């Protein structure tokens, strides 16, 4: 979902524009003024000045020329990929500089704009990159530790931006296929940055569904180890701002685990359908135990005609939204019993405890269906 660039999503974003051509900077300052509701602009005359600004300001996008004194655009790109890998860089080039473009792309530039360009051209490029920052959604009121555990369990590849409302500080964490890859918090990087980010309270978390391709893993330990370290440091009150330590690490129950999609099995032929129906509870049990192992909160699998009423009502719910065929369901009742069911005649019912990995059982049930 595109981000609404507003205060609620972490304040107005800042864009840093770097060029030694003062006239160009002046005209951009005036022209980009019409985007002030979406982003504000900072300006630098060379790469060195830009790095100074990046040290003290939270910047979302950098737009840089290539040919500049002191530190040129390519040298700046190289520094940025190691110090600020989360900040996308747009390179301004003169037309016909293919080799330069190739070099810049190799160095980590995400977009190019050929000079001369219109204000709207560059404005739109910036907006599109800003929207990417939260193409995976924005989440509030959840501790960063909880979200990171979720990212690990879901095997997400993403860039997570954690924004603290009180201090206006932002930290960035990178996950590749659920593995904690790198992080940045101000000038901190790697594990130290993650620990700092975990200490943030009252945060917005913006999720970008991608991670820079050039990124190399800089965190050698697993997420749990980092979470424990962060908790230990909080307990020792090493950080300046610790407001609510118990919020940092919250264990997710096993039921929140999610796996990637599995390929569907071919549907059974009609001749075998009846036979398979009889064997379904045993197959469900076998598949769940094979994939999850024993002791995952699974207590019983059975065929049960008593579930027809529940299935009928569940079908009525689906009818309200034209949801199509009911594949499977999970029901937790007021007496705290929890069951999965695969509709049929009779339905297959899997009794579980509430800590079971619900989504993984869903995937298995969907395949069996």
């Amino acid at each position: 979902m595109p981000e609404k660039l507003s205060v609620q999503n972490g304040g107005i974003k800042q864009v840093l524009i770097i060029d030694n051509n003062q006239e160009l900077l002046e005209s951009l300052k005036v022209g980009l003024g019409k985007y002030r509701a979406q982003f504000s602009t900072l300006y630098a005359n060379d790469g060195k000045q830009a790095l100074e600004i990046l040290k003290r300001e939270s910047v979302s996008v950098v737009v840089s020329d290539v040919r500049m004194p002191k530190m040129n655009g390519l040298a700046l790109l190289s520094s940025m990929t190691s110090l600020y890998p989360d900040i996308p860089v747009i390179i301004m080039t003169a037309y016909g500089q293919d080799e330069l473009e190739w070099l810049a792309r190799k160095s980590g530039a995400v977009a190019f704009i050929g000079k001369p360009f219109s204000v709207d051209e560059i404005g739109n490029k910036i907006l599109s990159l800003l929207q990417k920052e939260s193409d995976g959604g924005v989440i509030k009121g959840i501790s960063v530790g909880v979200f990171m555990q979720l990212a690990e369990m879901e095997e997400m590849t993403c860039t997570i931006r954690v924004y603290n409302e009180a201090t206006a500080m932002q930290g960035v964490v990178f996950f590749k296929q659920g593995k904690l890859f790198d992080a940045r918090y101000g000038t901190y990087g790697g594990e130290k940055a993650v620990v700092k980010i975990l200490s943030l309270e009252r945060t917005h978390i913006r999720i970008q569904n991608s991670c820079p391709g050039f990124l190399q893993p800089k965190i050698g330990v697993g997420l749990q180890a980092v979470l424990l370290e962060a908790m230990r440091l909080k307990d020792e009150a090493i950080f300046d701002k610790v407001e609510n330590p118990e919020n940092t690490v919250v264990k997710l129950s096993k039921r929140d685990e999610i796996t990637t999609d599995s390929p569907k099995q071919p549907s059974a032929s009609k001749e075998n359908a009846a036979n398979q129906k009889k064997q379904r509870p045993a197959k469900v049990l076998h598949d769940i135990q094979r994939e999850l192992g024993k002791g995952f909160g699974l207590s019983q699998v059975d065929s049960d005609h008593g579930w027809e009423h529940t299935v009928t009502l569940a079908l009525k719910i689906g009818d309200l939204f034209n949801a199509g065929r009911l594949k499977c369901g999970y029901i937790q009742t007021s007496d705290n019993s929890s069951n999965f069911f695969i509709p049929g005649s009779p339905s297959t019912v899997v009794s579980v405890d509430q800590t079971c990995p619900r989504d993984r059982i869903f995937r298995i049930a969907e395949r069996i269906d």
Partner: protein
Amino acid sequence: MYNMKMLIDDLFNVKGVLGVLVVSSDRSVVFQDLARLKLDGLKETDLEMPLLLFDRVEEADLLFEYYRIYIRKCPLGLLWVIMQPDASAAMIRLQCDIIAPKMKQQKQIKRGIGRLFM
């Protein structure tokens, strides 16, 4: 103070959420946003039969061919989230964990003197 729209917006920020419905304990529709499902909106009478499921049920998660429907009891009544089948259900449940207590706060304010200041 939270208003319903703000709370539900948080839910819509999770990728894959297509619709949200809040039904009060007395079975009236408190909030619905089903525009992404291209549905006009549900009436109380549409819900009579499906709501029978929730006499004893606290939470239901139903996977259909085209959508996944997550329904849970909350202090206000029932919170329904209609999502894409491959949406991040764990994140949506987590978001529901966050907003459900806030719906309670809203309910308390409405009943007390706070309603005068809403």
